[in-house]
């Protein structure tokens, strides 16, 4: 791979890792279920960007764009279903506190 492309890949890679750390931190620290889902979305964003960068540096934009479109569809469906579950939880516990979801243990 040419040095220039490699540099692009490395630069993007650096920020992609930072973005996923952001998402993971959000997922782990928050006590709100919707915010946890937002953390997951950040992770998905990071990985989408990674796929596009790979497409760019290998010159296979067509393939990676096709992949990314599918990933985006999946992402939305996951977010919708997760939101639905959070909504249900809200209806049962009257709150979105992740600490409520500790009844199953042991």
């Amino acid at each position: 791979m040419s040095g220039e492309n490699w540099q692009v890949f490395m630069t993007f890679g650096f920020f992609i890792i930072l973005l996923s750390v952001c998402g993971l931190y959000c997922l782990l620290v928050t006590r709100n279920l919707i915010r946890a889902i937002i953390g997951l979305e950040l992770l998905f964003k990071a990985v989408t960007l990674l796929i596009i960068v790979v497409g760019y540096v290998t010159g296979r934009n067509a393939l990676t764009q096709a992949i990314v479109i599918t990933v985006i569809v999946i992402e939305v469906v996951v977010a919708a279903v997760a939101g639905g579950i959070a909504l249900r939880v809200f209806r049962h516990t009257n709150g979105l506190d992740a600490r409520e979801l500790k009844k199953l243990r042991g």
Partner: protein
Amino acid sequence: MPSLLIFIPLFGIVILNLPFGKAMRNAAFWFALAVFIVQIVLAITHQPIFWGNEIEQMDAFFRVNFSVDQLSFVMLLCIGLVSLTSLLVMRDTIFDINERFKFINLLMLASMGMSGIVMVTDIFTMYIFLEITAIASFILIAFEKDVYALEGAFKYMVLSALASVLILAATAILLLGAGSASFTAIADAIHRTDNNLIAVAMGLFVCGLLIKGGMVPFHGWLPDAYGAASPAVSVLLAGIVTKAAGIYTLIRALNSILGFDANIKALLLALGTISILVGAFAAIGQKDFKRMLAYSSISQTGYIVLGFGCATPLAIAGAVFHLFNHSIFKSLLFVNSAAVETRLGSTDMDRAGGLAQKMPITGFTSVIGALSAAGIPPLSGFWSKIIIVVALWQAGHTWYAATAIMASIITLAYLLAMQRKVFFGKLALGLEDIEEARLGIRAASVMLAAIIIGFGVLFPSAYAIFIAPIGEMFIK
């Protein structure tokens, strides 16, 4: 024509959902039943007209590229059997016609996703089918809509999404070297390049699959999801979903994509052993029937992964056979738990007792299931475990083999404790008028018990037909 396994149910679901009134909703059950039975029959007979490449028009029409080998056949058989079981259990646990209809749709979609997983030849398409199965599963878990089910579903969703991210990241990095997402291209790229990044991608990929498969320490979601789901869903999840999504994909990835890398083998051996032990020990003290079975499931999956980590043809054949056996006996035990749950209203083992007197079929089949899980001759579970252990010796992994055998005793201990608490001993107070489970559950448990006994007794021929060819697949 393997694509028909995906498209016929898909079109069926679309048509069933058209607004044609109640008749469609009643037909859904029979349609699903027919689809699953046809899948079982085709997987057993290896019908060349259906699977063969002579009649390509269908696949060519849809421009899909499926490939089916021995391993896929075993998996398709499991998928058909467990989905059928789940359907039969559903018949006796969900009675509202609209609920039933939605459930059947989701069940067929999940089953379709799994059939896709075992037939694809492209890493990204595999990911899509994984996602189909996963999303359908967590909707199914949340189907119950009590707060426990929601909790289980949410945990599964979070961990599963994390796994998706890992798998996608790995796919992206592998694309960097391969330029195409097909198995062959990626295998070629891995073979060609010696780079840290690619190695890390392999690690990410395997970790993603291990989360889906619920191996220790990636297993946190599994007991909650299995335990909280409604009976029919537990059967499906424990029997096949995690196996198809995590374990089958793992062996496919190792064999067709990543190759048996030394580091990954060491990783799998270690994780397999830890899973066996943690699962078994955690199962000992459980008070809830389903939760105990869930931990037991982790432990049994450990055996399978241990077999993969050993990576000799015999070990992999044994592991795949154990995968099949596990699908059958764990489904059977979950069907038994469903029988208890429908009659007792809960799966708390302390509340049950002496149920075998009132529910003889459930009691008897649960003994068969438990003994097969513990690896007792001549039931089929024994053969797969012994093959794995023998293969481990032959490969020189004596300590792993010894651990595997020791854990087998723990398995027997907790399963016997369960038997004593739930089915034998004195009849618990207030259970005098309890009845045997309904027809669907009974039929499912008898069918699965018959398979366990049949495979155990006819092991040599079953071995020759199903298992040995898988071992041969891996001889390089």
